């Protein structure tokens, strides 16, 4: 007696071909259940995608907004030109600061005159501008976190010639709360949809497995390897996920076009929220669907014991 241990050439290709055929047969045989599964997967992915897109756009909007609340560093009355120059140098060198604007006493006075309008005469009682000179700084966008801004402001406060540091603390903390809530929501929601899509495929594959349990039993007795038994189901799962994802990306494109060309007329704010539709979704969404469905199928098949 001899063992046929060595795998002949082309064996894996033949097994793959067999599995593809079996998967196609099953897809063709159970058109409706497969169609409904694909539809459910695509709806799940569309919701997830819409959420991610809105979230990403809102986040970048929030960051831009947060950035616009600069930090204003008021300088001491008696500060020398040299000290001012040194401070400017210091700010320019700081990597956390994106933009530095110097506002002299006179410029500040001009500003306030403009604001006061006809009441500007009250300023005439001062023979010199009553406002200190200042630096308006724009921090890099990562400074959405109020604690970090507070820390930065405290550091600046200690610098020579600095009288006071102001920043929109209240605004910043509420923006940061919104951003944090968004983040938590996306994690919770994203996980929920991930599980849902995985579960949809899981249950469909479970049904197929149950229906074909006699066949699987016979295959095991005849000596089919685990991958031989698994592959048709995995391919079917892959098909469901990929097609669901493709359908979903088309759905997203359609809704995006609809919003951009129709809704914007009535709701211009939409344009701000839906500012971008990255073309990578045509790859990422089907791929994501494939991964989730594959995972679902894999869990559904579970351990194969002989």
């Amino acid at each position, binding site marked *: *007696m*001899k*063992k*046929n*241990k060595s*795998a*002949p050439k*082309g*064996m*894996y*290709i*033949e*097994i793959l071909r*067999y599995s593809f055929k079996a998967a196609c047969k099953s897809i063709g045989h159970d058109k409706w259940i497969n169609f409904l599964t694909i539809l459910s997967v695509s709806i799940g992915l569309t919701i997830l995608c819409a959420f991610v897109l809105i979230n990403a756009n809102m986040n970048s909007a929030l960051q831009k907004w947060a950035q616009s609340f600069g930090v204003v560093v008021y300088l001491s009355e008696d500060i020398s030109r040299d000290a001012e120059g040194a401070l400017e140098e210091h700010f320019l060198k700081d990597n956390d600061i994106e933009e530095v604007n110097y506002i002299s006493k006179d410029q500040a006075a001009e500003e306030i005159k403009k604001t006061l309008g006809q009441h500007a005469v009250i300023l005439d009682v001062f023979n010199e501008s009553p406002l200190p000179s200042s630096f308006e700084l724009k921090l890099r966008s990562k400074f959405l976190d109020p604690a970090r801004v507070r820390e930065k402001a405290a550091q600046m406060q200690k610098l020579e010639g600095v009288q006071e540091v102001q920043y929109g603390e209240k605004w910043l903390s509420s923006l940061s709360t919104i951003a944090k809530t968004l983040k938590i929501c996306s994690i919770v929601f994203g996980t929920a949809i991930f599980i849902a899509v995985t579960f949809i495929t899981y249950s469909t594959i479970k049904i197929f497995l149950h229906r074909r349990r*006699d*066949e699987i*039993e*016979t*295959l*095991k*007795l*005849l*000596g*089919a*390897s*685990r991958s*031989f038994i698994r592959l048709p189901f995995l391919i079917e799962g892959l098909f469901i996920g990929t097609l669901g994802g493709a359908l979903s990306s088309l759905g997203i494109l359609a809704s995006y076009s609809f919003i951009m060309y129709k809704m914007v007329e009535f709701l211009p704010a939409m344009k701000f929220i839906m500012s971008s539709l990255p073309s990578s979704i045509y790859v990422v969404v089907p791929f994501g669907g494939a991964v989730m469905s594959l995972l679902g199928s894999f869990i559904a098949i579970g351990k194969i*014991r*002989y």
Partner: protein
Amino acid sequence: MILFSDVSKRYDKKPVLNSISLIIKKGELLFITGPSGAGKTTMLKLIYCSERPDSGHITVSDWEVSKLGQSEIPELRRNIGIIFQDFKLLTNRTVFDNVALALSIHGMNQGKIRHYVNEALEEVKLLDKASLYPQFLSGGEQQRVVIARAMVSKPVVLLADEPTGDLDVENAKTIMELFSKINGKGTTVLIATHDENLFRNSGHRVVHINDHYIEKEYVG
């Protein structure tokens, strides 16, 4: 070679086989007989590792079956042709596809599969029924499909569990002739049966199991 050494098997504490030792030579044709419930099917199941012994060792060729890991079982089974007592034919596949399945799991290409399946169906005289579904075949025909499936991959060992179940004498004779032919090509054949007509005057070894033991061994 198949070797049982001091093999015991219980189902839920109920003993079925007790300290069975048996050597089956390569190329031998052997009958296992005994009353219903004696443990004939169980012995075959132990060989293809569908059941594990509670104690003792079983060796098939180079496989230490009683120690085989889960991932090694398929390879063992691919080298054993099994004729199941309950057939295990798939009703959603044609006769041809049922037989072809035993080759598909080997990763054989379509052309070769067609060749070997036709050859096997020819052997059991069922070529004209290849495109039918097994449930529309007679008992004897179904039995022959199972035989074709078991022999199509040219296994080193053929296990036949009650292969003449409730067939008439004529059909039983045809099937026995087929086994002799397969055995003549060097395949070790094990037939579990309670049909004395099969082994009477056959000239092959008969192992009689009763009351969990090998009660007697003789040449039929």
